[in-house]
């Protein structure tokens, strides 16, 4: 019987949010929410599957900024504080809902959910989620990969090839610094591909990356096997494309599983439902409403009143959806195999944060999918794209089309009237950093100068994150994104001036090193285009 492969890729990324200059900072909750709702549940899924000897393989992309934040002791301690706050809130909710038994039952579930998170984070994983993910890599379940240093959107940074080179290099070095090896796969931020980026990837030993469907379908040669086999870009680096069918079943707002009426409603949170007096200790400044994570309702319908969440009903639906997903993949790959000269591989990439954070039942759905796909005698198996390349050689050669997985499929979301002003500033800073490195070619610098130069490069990388133009376009947290962008560029300008004028204030430099505590191994000399583009 011919084999067929399902390759699920979870891409986990958050922008670097780290504010030691404040006692607490609202946007740090982004990390805390996904640890509780996504990363811990996913780890428990992998642990259970391993204990029950389920054969499963999938790819997990961990962005460098996320790696750094998960390892940061300040954020780790603040996460514990966050969990204790949620536990107190759930206790308060249990008391408040004493005359509403159905709601109180949910409040108790939330208390247990947070107790489990606290126990697992502290005791089971010892505050070290990366090692826990790494263990599943060693066990052969996860193929860990990474992405660009700060998730820079490479098709718009490639005005400077040095900028692209350093986004990739620093990202890979950060990953290696934490996990001890370089990955073979690479996640292009936002699946943003431009012809030529594969040359940079090849320099670092990367042998595959991912594009959206049209990246392959609109390639320089028609792909003989559609999106169900990779294309060799001509230099031994292969592009795998997202399968639109399996993605649509999960991503689509209209037709996707997460919109089912039985699932928990993300947009109905007690942070917006309760009296502010009840919430004061748990919301920003005691007066700004925000999501708390405690949500009592299910999607119910597109409009109208929301019914109470029924957890068992939701899990039953997730099982059905998992069966539907796997069955559709079996039918799909059976049809594909008849027309292909090689085993089809269905590539299904998702944002990891969809699972548990946006789609509360997502981790349970994924667990069921992985269980169902481990069926003796079934030709469909979960595999990674790296596995595929070890088994299948000789691929069609063609250049994929410029593409991304964002709105309209190209650069539109990251380049429009809301965020175009960003790019002249980024390009100017990049040019100045490259000029500094070039001017210092062959010259010794003092340790203090070295620190200032490296910190300038860190500021530049943090300014280049794709998250800031994304947020400027999406319209939420615009003020924060604007401030972060301008702050990083201001820090770059300050350090650039200090270096050029030979006036480095160590105290100020140390302050910036503490605040932007990223990429410890970064070498500013990599910004010398003469060095960067000579290869690695």
């Amino acid at each position: 019987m011919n084999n067929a492969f399902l390759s699920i890729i979870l891409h986990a990324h958050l922008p670097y949010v780290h504010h030691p200059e404040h006692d607490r900072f609202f946007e740090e909750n982004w990390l805390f929410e996904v640890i509780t709702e996504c990363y811990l549940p996913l780890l428990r899924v992998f642990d259970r599957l391993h204990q029950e000897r389920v054969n499963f393989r999938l790819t997990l992309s961990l962005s460098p900024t996320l790696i750094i934040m998960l390892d940061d002791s300040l954020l780790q301690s603040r996460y514990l504080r966050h969990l204790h706050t949620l536990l107190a809130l759930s206790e308060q909710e249990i008391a408040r809902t004493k005359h509403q038994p159905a709601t109180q039952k949910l409040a108790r579930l939330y208390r247990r959910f947070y107790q489990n998170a606290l126990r697992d984070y502290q005791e089971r994983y010892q505050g070290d989620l990366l090692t826990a993910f790494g263990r599943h890599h060693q066990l052969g379940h996860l193929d860990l990969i990474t992405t660009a240093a700060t998730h820079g959107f490479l098709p718009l940074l490639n005005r400077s090839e040095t900028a692209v080179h350093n986004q990739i290099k620093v990202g890979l070095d950060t990953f290696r610094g934490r996990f001890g090896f370089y990955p073979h796969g690479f996640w292009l931020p936002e699946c943003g591909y431009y012809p030529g980026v594969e040359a940079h990837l090849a320099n670092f030993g990367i042998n595959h990356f991912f594009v959206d469907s049209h990246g392959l379908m609109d390639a320089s040669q028609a792909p003989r096997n559609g999106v169900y086999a990779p294309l060799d870009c001509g230099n031994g680096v292969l592009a795998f494309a997202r399968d639109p069918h399996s993605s649509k079943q999960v991503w689509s707002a209209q037709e996707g599983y997460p919109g089912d009426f039985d699932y928990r409603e993300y947009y109905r949170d007690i942070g917006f439902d309760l009296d502010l007096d009840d919430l004061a200790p748990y919301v920003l400044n005691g007066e700004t409403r925000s999501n708390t994570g405690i949500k009592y309702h299910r999607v119910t319908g597109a409009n109208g009143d929301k019914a109470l969440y029924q957890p068992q009903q939701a899990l039953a639906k997730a099982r059905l959806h998992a069966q539907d997903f796997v069955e559709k993949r079996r039918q799909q790959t059976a049809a594909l195999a008849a027309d292909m000269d090689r085993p089809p591989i269905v590539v299904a990439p998702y944002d990891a944060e969809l699972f548990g954070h946006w789609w509360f039942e997502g981790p349970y759905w994924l667990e069921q999918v992985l269980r169902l796909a481990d069926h003796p005698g079934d030709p469909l198996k979960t595999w990674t794209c790296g596995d595929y390349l070890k088994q299948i050689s000789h691929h069609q050669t063609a250049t994929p089309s410029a593409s991304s997985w964002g709105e309209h499929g190209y650069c539109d979301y990251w380049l429009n009237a809301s965020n175009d002003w960003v790019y002249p500033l980024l390009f100017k800073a990049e040019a100045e950093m490259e000029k500094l490195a070039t001017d210092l070619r062959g010259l010794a610098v003092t340790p203090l100068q070295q620190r200032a130069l490296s910190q300038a490069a860190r500021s530049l990388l943090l300014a280049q994150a794709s998250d800031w133009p994304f947020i400027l376009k999406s319209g939420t947290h615009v003020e924060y994104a604007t401030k972060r962008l301008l702050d990083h560029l201001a820090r770059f300008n300050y350090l650039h001036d200090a270096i050029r004028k030979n006036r480095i204030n160590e105290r100020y430099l140390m302050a910036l090193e503490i605040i932007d505590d990223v990429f410890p191994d970064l070498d500013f000399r990599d910004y010398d285009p003469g060095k960067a583009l000579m290869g690695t």
Partner: protein
Amino acid sequence: MMNSDLKKPVDAAGTHPILASDSAQTRPAGAAGFFSATELKQISERLRRDYAPVFRQKKPVVCDPATLSASELLEISTWVSRTHRPALNSAKDLLLLLPVAPGRAYVYWNSPGIKPTAAGPNDCDRSLWLTFYLKAFGQPVADTGTKPMLHLALNHRAGPRQTIAWPENQEQVTCVAVLGQQHPDKPFVVLAQSNVVHLTNPVRLSTQPRPSALLSSGQFSASGQG
């Protein structure tokens, strides 16, 4: 050119405005017995730290957060942000050309001298034009008398930006854009010139028959988090 001082040892205290009150900057030197034993030790340690022979260090100095309080960090970051904020309106004319998709380019300009006012038909400012020239490697731009590929009047309603649909007969080109003013009976005045960019058009593949299972069902967007 790089400041040649960069090769010299650096005074860590420096003469930064915020350190103007640092007594080390004003104290007269030379008198024996002027320094206490503690001061001499501090100076000695600083000299050792800052002026020891340079060995290339891979790892940066580990920062001890305890050395600076949260309020000091906030004070410093606020000062840096206030005093070194990037200028959003460049004093120099700027024209940026970026590929936004196959077949489409994005032009953004920031030119202090440009004030579109004279709206013509279809909201176009008939005095401001974007002109695109093919760029051969090493060839100077816009002074060759080359016939432009595209010559477009600006739509002033969109602000300092325009998305350009690329002529379909050009599969891929390397080009530059020029922003300029064109008044009747006067020569074209160049205000700003863009970067060089490589633009492509969508691939027009022959529609060879393929099994329906292999066909994509169309593009939709993903990415919830950015």
